[in-house]
């Protein structure tokens, strides 16, 4: 079994209200060293076989067409997760 990770983030020019709220909460809990926070999404796509170039290409296409909305989000990374824990 293989696993592909697709990371989606809000576009840099889009204000990220959730990240801003998290950034506001951190100093109240003693984490004063972080200037800002942006919150995105991580998708884990599993395949029965190995992660081939075709699988990665399909994961990127799914990321761009379904998992993200290109108006507000970017697919920032598509990669094989090589440390798949046994389930």
């Amino acid at each position, binding site marked *: 079994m293989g696993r592909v990770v697709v990371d989606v983030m*809000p576009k840099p*020019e*889009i*204000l990220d*209200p*959730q990240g801003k*709220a998290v950034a506001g909460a951190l100093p109240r809990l003693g984490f004063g060293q972080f200037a800002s926070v942006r919150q995105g999404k991580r998708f884990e796509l599993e395949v029965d076989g190995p992660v081939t170039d075709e699988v990665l290409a399909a994961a990127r296409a799914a990321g761009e067409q*379904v*998992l993200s*909305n290109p*108006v*507000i989000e970017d697919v920032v990374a598509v990669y094989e997760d090589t440390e798949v824990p046994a389930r």
Partner: protein
Amino acid sequence: MSRIGVVTFPGTLDDRDAARAVRLAGGEPVALWHADADLHGVDAVVLPGGFSYGDYLRAGAISRFAPVMGEVVDAARGGLPVLGICNGFQVLTEAHLLPGSMIKNDHLHFVCREQVLSVERADTPWTRDYAAGEHITIPLKNQDGQYVADERTLDELEGEGRVVFRYEGWNPNGSRRGIAGISNAAGNVVGLMPHPEHAVEAGFGPDGPKGPRTGTDGLRFFTSVLKALVS
């Protein structure tokens, strides 16, 4: 009598209110199910509010792939009047019938209020019973209501007169340029975040000039489309 389809997705909340608004305006509401790949010959379609598919992934993102949406997209491109309210507006943006997208309200709170809008365009099939520049009051209730698009798209919308409604007085969610509702280039597809279907009958609407709960400013969306269909 004109038949107006009202789509129900899993998680849709306001389909009954939308159907009731159609009936009060003098039309015949037709229930359309998300799994139907058939519009049953309706003359117009309303995509109501709610949390279709739990807003999973993004608001409206999964609904776009429902069988009924393939039919709605084709018919809309052919000129069928389509109105998306709140979650329905989000579905229309995800289906690429309308540009831009909605993100969380800038203040992060769910908002539920009686909202004043200015009607910018009174020449769409959904707004012809209003006057351009008129102020109307209808409910607004959402979490992901902040309309965003890039500057070029916003300039295009303004330049082509496709901003149909703007928030008046206070921008309740941080929407770019105070935009509350827009149309496609042809004008037959309109989406907005506030809820006209909740302001169609005295006793149940926002406060109005005649007293508490007397506001029925939303009814003319539905009378507008019925008139547009027979003219």
